[in-house]
C-alpha cells in the first residue's frame, strides 16, 4: 500500500537537522501501522512525506502504486484526496460548524450538495456526533474535536488515514475511545491506518505493526508483539523500560538466588507454566513482580521470579521454561 525507499529529508536552518536518513518501510494494506519515537526522532516529517506535505530530498514514496515525489501539483492534489489525515491539534476550521467542517473536503473535491449532505450525516453517525452538527469547534471537548477530525478525514472515502499524534492532546480516557474508533474504522472500512506517536500504550492498544524511529532511522520494525517482547534495538528497549518498569532493586541483584525475567505472549499467558515447573522440578519460585497486559488483542505477561534450589534443578527448570516457548532472561 505504502512503500518508502531510501527517504531522506534535511532541514537547513540556523542548524542543519537531518530529520530522516534513508527510511525504508513497507506498510501493507489494511493494517494499523504505528511509528513510535521520541520527539525529534523524525516521526512528523516521516508521516508528512507520505502525502508530500514535506517533500523528501531523496528517495521514493509510493502510495497505492503511485510515485508521489514528482507528481505535478494538480495530480498531487488528486492523490491527496485519497489520503485522509488527522492532527494532534485537530486543525478544524473555527469559522465552520461541525457539519461544515466535515463538508469541507467534499466541497474541495467538488461534490454535489446532496452528496455532501448525506455523507456528512453518515459520518456524524459513525463518530457519534449527530447532536453536535451545528456546534462550533470552540464548543466541543478535545475528544469530540478529534472525532470531527476523523469524520472530516473520512469524508472523501480515502483508503489511507494518516494520524499525526492524534491522541497526544487528549486525556487517557478520551484517548481510549478515539483509539477504539480508529480500530472500528480499520476493521469496518478496511482502511489502512498509519499513526505516529510517542506513547507505547497507543501502539499496544491498536497497532498490528510497529516501526521504532530514532535519529531519523528506523531502528527496527515488525509485528508489535514481537518488537515489544523481544526488542533488539537499544532505543526500543529504552522505551519499553520506560513504560513497563522493571527496575530491579540492587539488593536483589546481588543475591545468591537466580533471578529470571519471563515474558509470556499470546496463549502462553493463560498457561500455568510456573506451577507446572514447581511441580515437575524441586525448585522454589518466589514471584517478585508480575503484570499482564494486552497488545491489540494478544495478551502479554511479564514475571520477575526468583528461583531457589540446587543448581542442577534450576538448570532443568530453565530448560523446561525455554521448551515452553517462554521468553526468558537470566538477570543474576
Amino acid at each position, binding site marked *: 500500500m505504502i512503500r518508502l525507499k531510501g527517504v531522506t529529508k534535511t532541514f537547513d536552518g540556523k542548524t542543519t537537522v537531518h530529520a530522516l536518513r534513508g527510511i525504508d518501510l513497507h506498510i501493507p494494506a489494511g493494517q494499523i501501522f504505528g511509528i513510535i519515537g521520541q520527539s525529534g526522532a523524525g516521526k512528523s516529517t516521516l508521516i508528512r512525506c507520505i502525502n508530500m506535505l514535506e517533500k523528501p530530498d531523496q528517495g521514493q514514496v509510493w502510495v497505492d502504486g503511485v510515485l508521489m515525489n514528482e507528481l505535478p501539483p494538480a495530480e498531487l492534489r*488528486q492523490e491527496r484526496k485519497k489520503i485522509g489525515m488527522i*492532527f494532534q491539534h485537530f*486543525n478544524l476550521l473555527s*469559522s465552520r460548524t461541525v457539519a461544515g467542517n466535515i463538508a*469541507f*473536503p467534499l466541497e*474541495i473535491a467538488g461534490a454535489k450538495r446532496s452528496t455532501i449532505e448525506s455523507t456528512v450525516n453518515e459520518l456524524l453517525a459513525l463518530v457519534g456526533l449527530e447532536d453536535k452538527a451545528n456546534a462550533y469547534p470552540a464548543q466541543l471537548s478535545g475528544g469530540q474535536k478529534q472525532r470531527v477530525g476523523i469524520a472530516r478525514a473520512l469524508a472523501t472515502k480515502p483508503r489511507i488515514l494518516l494520524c499525526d499524534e492524534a491522541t497526544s492532546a487528549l486525556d487517557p480516557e478520551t484517548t481510549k475511545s478515539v483509539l477504539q474508533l480508529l480500530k472500528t474504522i480499520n476493521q469496518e472500512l478496511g482502511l489502512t491506518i498509519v499513526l505516529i506517536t510517542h506513547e507505547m500504550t497507543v501502539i499496544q492498544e491498536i497497532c498490528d505493526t510497529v516501526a521504532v524511529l530514532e535519529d531519523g532511522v528506523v531502528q527496527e520494525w515488525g509485528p508489535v508483539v514481537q518488537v515489544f517482547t523481544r526488542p533488539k534495538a537499544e532505543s526500543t528497549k529504552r522505551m519499553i523500560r520506560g513504560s513497563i518498569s522493571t527496575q530491579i532493586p540492587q539488593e536483589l541483584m546481588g543475591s545468591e538466588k537466580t533471578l529470571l525475567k519471563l515474558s509470556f505472549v499470546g496463549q502462553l499467558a493463560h498457561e500455568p507454566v510456573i506451577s507446572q515447573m514447581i511441580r515437575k522440578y524441586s525448585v522454589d519460585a518466589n514471584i517478585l513482580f508480575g503484570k499482564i497486559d494486552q497488545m491489540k488483542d494478544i495478551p502479554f505477561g511479564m514475571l520477575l521470579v526468583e528461583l531457589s534450589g540446587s543448581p542442577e534443578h534450576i538448570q532443568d527448570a530453565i530448560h523446561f521454561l525455554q521448551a515452553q516457548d517462554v521468553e526468558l532472561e537470566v538477570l543474576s
Partner: protein
Amino acid sequence: MLWQATVETLTMVGISTVVASVLGLPLGLLLACTDQGHILENSFVNKVLGAVINVGRSIPFIILMVAIIPFTRLIAGTSIGTKAAIVPLTVAAVPFVARLVESAIKEIDSGVVEAALSMGASPWQIIAKVLIPEALPALVLALTLTAVNLIGYSAMAGAVGGGGLGDLAIRFGYQRFRGDIMLQTVAILVVLVQAVQMLGDWIARQLYKR
C-alpha cells in the same frame, strides 16, 4: 452647513474605505501567501511588494495629497473638492489595508492550512475557503481601523479644499474664530469615530466563533 460637511466626510471616508479594501485585500493576501513557508511562497514577489507598500506608508499624508495631484486630476477630473479628496485618501489607505490584511491572515494557525493542503485543496480554495473565512473577524476589525484612520485623514484633506468637517473646522472654526463651530465639528468627529468603531466591533463579535 454642519450637516453638509458631515455628509461630505461620510462620502469621502465611505468610498475610500470601500475602494481601499477592494484593492488592499488582494495585496494583503498576496503578501501573506508569498511569505516563506506559505502556500504561494515567492520571496521575490514578497520582497518587492513589501518594499512598495513600505514606501507608500512612509509618505506623510499631507505630502502625498499634494504629490499625486496629477494622478488625482486624471482619476477624478479635478484636484479640489470632496470628489478629488477621495483619490489621495484611497491611495494612502491601500498599503495600510494591505499590511492589516497580511497580519490578519498570518494570525491563522498554520495547522489549519496544512489540513486543507492534506485534503488536496488548491491555493485558491485555501484562500477562499480557509484564509478569508477564518480571518473574517480580524478583517472586519482591520477595515474598522482603516475607516477610523480615514476619518482623521479626511479632516486633513479639508485643509487643502477637500470639503468635509475638517474643512469646516479650519475655515470657520479656526480662521473666523468660531469656537462654537470648532467644538461642534470635533463633537461630530468623535461621535463618528465612536459609531464606526462600535459597529465594527459588533460585526466582528457576531462573526467570531472561536
